[in-house]
């Protein structure tokens, strides 16, 4: 009888009654065929594979990560609470050791959701992984975490949330931003001055195949993780690198995803994008689950699989190699890069424009970070949207030093309600979230 080598947990939440719109790729049907495949394969019957009921995250879990405008209820639907709850459920089971690893097969996805949320971006409103990670840090005292994002789109939301956090290693491999939404994720994006090098981006050229993906995993991702020594490895498992995906241009396969999972050995996998709902998702998901459980997946071969046709060209192989070399070099020099970025300043400023494509909102941010020698620094974001919202978001990091803690609270005290629609303080030392309003 079939038996899993690892105890693997699954939360399956296809949200069969939730869609962005009737014909939107992020719609009810998205995980239907995956569900059919999972049920037909009898995965939940395999000894060692356990299905969990998804819990719902609460508002505190969300406020530990996001500044939501005008409030959490306005930016999240019920489905978002459950989807993030699915990731949380798996994470808890891993921490409580009732499973060795687990997969939250949930929708809607989350990796384009940034720290400040005015609406939906890239089909995402809140960041499932970040909500889960910050919950784990709060409830289980976890410190160092690595997130490996294998969605075809750059996970700019997760990158944004962990940009200044040296304890979270964020590595994204994705289709080159010059050819793909959201247009970011280049090797020179390495994280903020207090966390240089713990953000790594590996853009892959269109038509990268199994060889290129596994090369990046073996050459960059695994050695960097080895050196970083995280307590947990999270995989944001987008499945849109598949050769049948309608929104992207890659040549990755179900077997490739399974191989990648076997190599990466993630503790927690969270589903992100992937819109080839009939040709890819059923097979990729099965491949990932079997790989997590340590069951033979060699028979998971999707229709249309042809290794010759799906082989990447030599020039792609070259490009991938060069990119990986650059990323490795940056990683090796991260200390020096950080020092150069910090220079002798006391504060670092950053101005950005953020577009919420799903909801059509433009946001302008001015970010101020204290360049603290002792912690990752108090952070202040002045955010305005073209809908007229003006928000001041103050973040005191989890391991803030006393100076940064004081500074964050001073910023909050000093800000005048008359100048903003909302002033928020996310105090991770106290685990509180305060709001001042006119």
């Amino acid at each position: 009888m079939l038996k899993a080598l690892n105890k693997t947990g699954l939360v399956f939440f296809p949200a069969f009654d939730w869609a962005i719109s009737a014909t939107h790729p992020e719609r009810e049907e998205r995980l239907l065929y995956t569900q059919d495949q999972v049920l037909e394969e009898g995965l939940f019957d395999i000894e060692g594979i356990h299905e969990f009921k998804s819990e719902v995250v609460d508002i505190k879990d969300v406020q530990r990560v996001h500044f939501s405008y005008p409030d959490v209820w306005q930016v999240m639907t019920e489905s978002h609470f459950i989807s993030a709850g699915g990731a949380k459920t798996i994470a808890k089971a891993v921490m409580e050791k009732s499973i060795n690893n687990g997969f939250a097969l949930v929708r809607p996805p989350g990796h384009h959701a940034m720290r400040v949320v005015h609406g939906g971006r890239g089909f995402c409103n809140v960041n499932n992984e970040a909500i889960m990670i910050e919950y784990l840090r709060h409830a289980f005292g976890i410190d160092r975490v690595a997130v490996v994002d294998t969605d075809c789109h750059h996970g700019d939301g997760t990158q944004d949330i962990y940009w200044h956090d040296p304890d979270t290693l964020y590595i994204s491999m994705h289709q080159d931003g010059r050819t793909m939404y959201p247009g970011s994720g280049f090797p020179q994006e390495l994280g903020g001055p207090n966390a240089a090098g713990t953000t790594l981006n590996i853009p892959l050229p269109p038509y990268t195949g199994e060889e290129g993906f596994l090369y990046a995993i073996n050459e960059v991702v695994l050695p960097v993780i080895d050196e970083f020594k995280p307590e947990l490895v999270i995989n944001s498992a987008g499945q849109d690198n598949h050769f049948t995906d309608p929104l992207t241009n890659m040549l990755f396969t179900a077997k490739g995803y399974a191989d990648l999972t076997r190599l990466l050995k993630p503790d927690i996998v969270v589903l992100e994008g992937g819109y080839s709902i009939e040709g890819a998702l059923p097979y990729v998901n099965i491949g990932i689950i079997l790989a997590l459980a340590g069951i033979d997946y060699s028979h998971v071969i999707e229709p249309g699989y042809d290794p010759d046709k799906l082989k990447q060209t030599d020039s792609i192989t070259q490009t991938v190699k060069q990119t990986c070399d650059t990323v490795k070099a940056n990683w090796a020099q991260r200390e020096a890069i950080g020092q150069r970025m910090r220079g002798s300043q006391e504060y670092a400023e950053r101005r950005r424009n953020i577009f919420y494509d799903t909801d059509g909102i433009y946001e302008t941010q001015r970010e101020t970070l204290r360049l603290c020698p002792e912690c990752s620094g108090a952070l202040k974001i002045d955010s305005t949207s073209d809908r007229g919202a003006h928000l001041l978001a103050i973040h005191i990091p989890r391991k803030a030093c006393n100076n940064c803690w004081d500074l964050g609270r001073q910023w909050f005290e000093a800000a005048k309600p008359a100048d903003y629609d909302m002033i928020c303080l996310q105090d991770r030392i106290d685990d509180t979230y305060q709001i001042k309003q006119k």
Partner: protein
Amino acid sequence: MIIGLDVGGTHTDVVLLGENGLEKQVKVPTDTSALFQTVLTGLEKITENVPADEITHAVLSTTLTTNAIVQGKLSPAGMLVSSGPGIHPEAFRTGEHYFVIPGGIDHSGREIEKLDTDQVRAAADQLERAGIQHVGVVGKFSARNPMHERQIAEILGDRFERIFLGHQISGNFGFPRRVNTTFLNASIYPVHRNFFEAVSHSLEKKGIQVPIHILKADGGTMGFESSIAFPGQSILSGPAASVMGSVAFAPDYTETLVLDIGGTSTDMAVLIKGVPLLAPYGVDINNYKTLIRALKTQSIGLGGDSCVRVVDGELKIGPDRTGKAMGYGGSDPTPTDALLVLERSVGGDRDRSLKGIEPIAALLGISVEEAAFEIFDKTCRKILAGARQMIESINSKPVYTVKEALEGYQVNPDHILVLGGPAAYFAEHFENISSYTVDTVPECQVANAIGTALSRTTCEITLFVDTQKGLATAPEESFSQTVDLHFSRIDAHRMAADLLKQKAVKLGAKTQDIETELLEDLEFNIVRGFRMMGKNLRVKQQIKPGLIHDFKAISKKIADSCIQ
């Protein structure tokens, strides 16, 4: 009048129900080595001096096929299995005669790899040479499109006595379970067929020609003759018999916990407003996970005859049983002995029970009466703890839609129905130590046979509609019909209800007993290239387990006669 017969581990109960309620009951010892004979004797005794024309039908719950599986006495069956991508079908091998045939159907019912017909022929030759008579054929996703199963059946032709096709056995997904279920059907076919023939002949000889039904694990019945094609449906009907026996006496406005306290174990089930809860997927038997519909029941190894001992100064009850209680000639003290000592039950030899409990009392350093009470109390508490565990596990079952997840429906019974030998003695104490209201099932010594007699025919149907392809299909029923783009969810409900009614009548249901219920109702847009191309509808309907139309009058009579 209706005959209900339930084969139990030690004896077989047979009842005759009519307008006066329980008209007659007999008990015959169960001879596991000659179950046919046990059943025939039971039927003979119950029909003695009863005019043949007054009997309307008979329902049998037997352990014949169950025993064959549990004891590994399966007749050899061949399996031909085809599968597309996924876990390799070799992982689900059922035995020696198992052939994996290349060919694949995908989740949407499309052929993605042609069936290798040469290999089908080669496998058939080998099976024939091995003298195999019964063959199961299973394809992955055959519940969506049975094309490959049918092709294989066609090639096998009439070279074998009987061929079982996976898609006809269940419309539900679950390839490994479909493989197991089909294999079991093929393997127990001969024993079930022989049984059918023996019972039919015997009744015929007595001039009784009434419809005979068998009880299924889901608490419903099906015509004996129809069951020849689905012998697997006859397994594990025992737990269902007692649950159905309690249904007549369960309130229809609340949730009820049914506790059937036997000698070795206590079987538990949940009734929601008088309707038993079904298990997801299907029954597990002897390491075979199947697609055979069943009531959600759980058994804990704790009953009236469980062994009682003291381990490290602590009282331990069960899960083993060495035989009868000491008060009834057994060798080890049991909860039944505790009841005898406490004089809550009579009939056994209290002195012998006292002898059994004495050493336990000594070890615990308390009086014999105190020890007896401890044993009884702990037994009751452990049973309730087991029930709570089952309810928790039911409530932890995942749900797949936002609505269900937020509604968070939780099973939360507030009433207990107890049946089984010592039911009456337990009921009062359950009420004392919990917040449940507690009742016992009248005539609970034969409640299982009464439940068997009163159960209605159940069945289930799965309908898939793809308005883009313009097709409505129910592969399990060999049904396929073209539909237009405007075919709606309501149309699908109607079509499924019609199919369900036809199926039920074919299986032996009376029209007044057909009460349909939606089990699944999903509607999806089919989008290709950001354009809506049609709808994908999935409707599952069932006739839920319940009692036949006339049951109320009969059960009321039974309850009334008990009070007198």
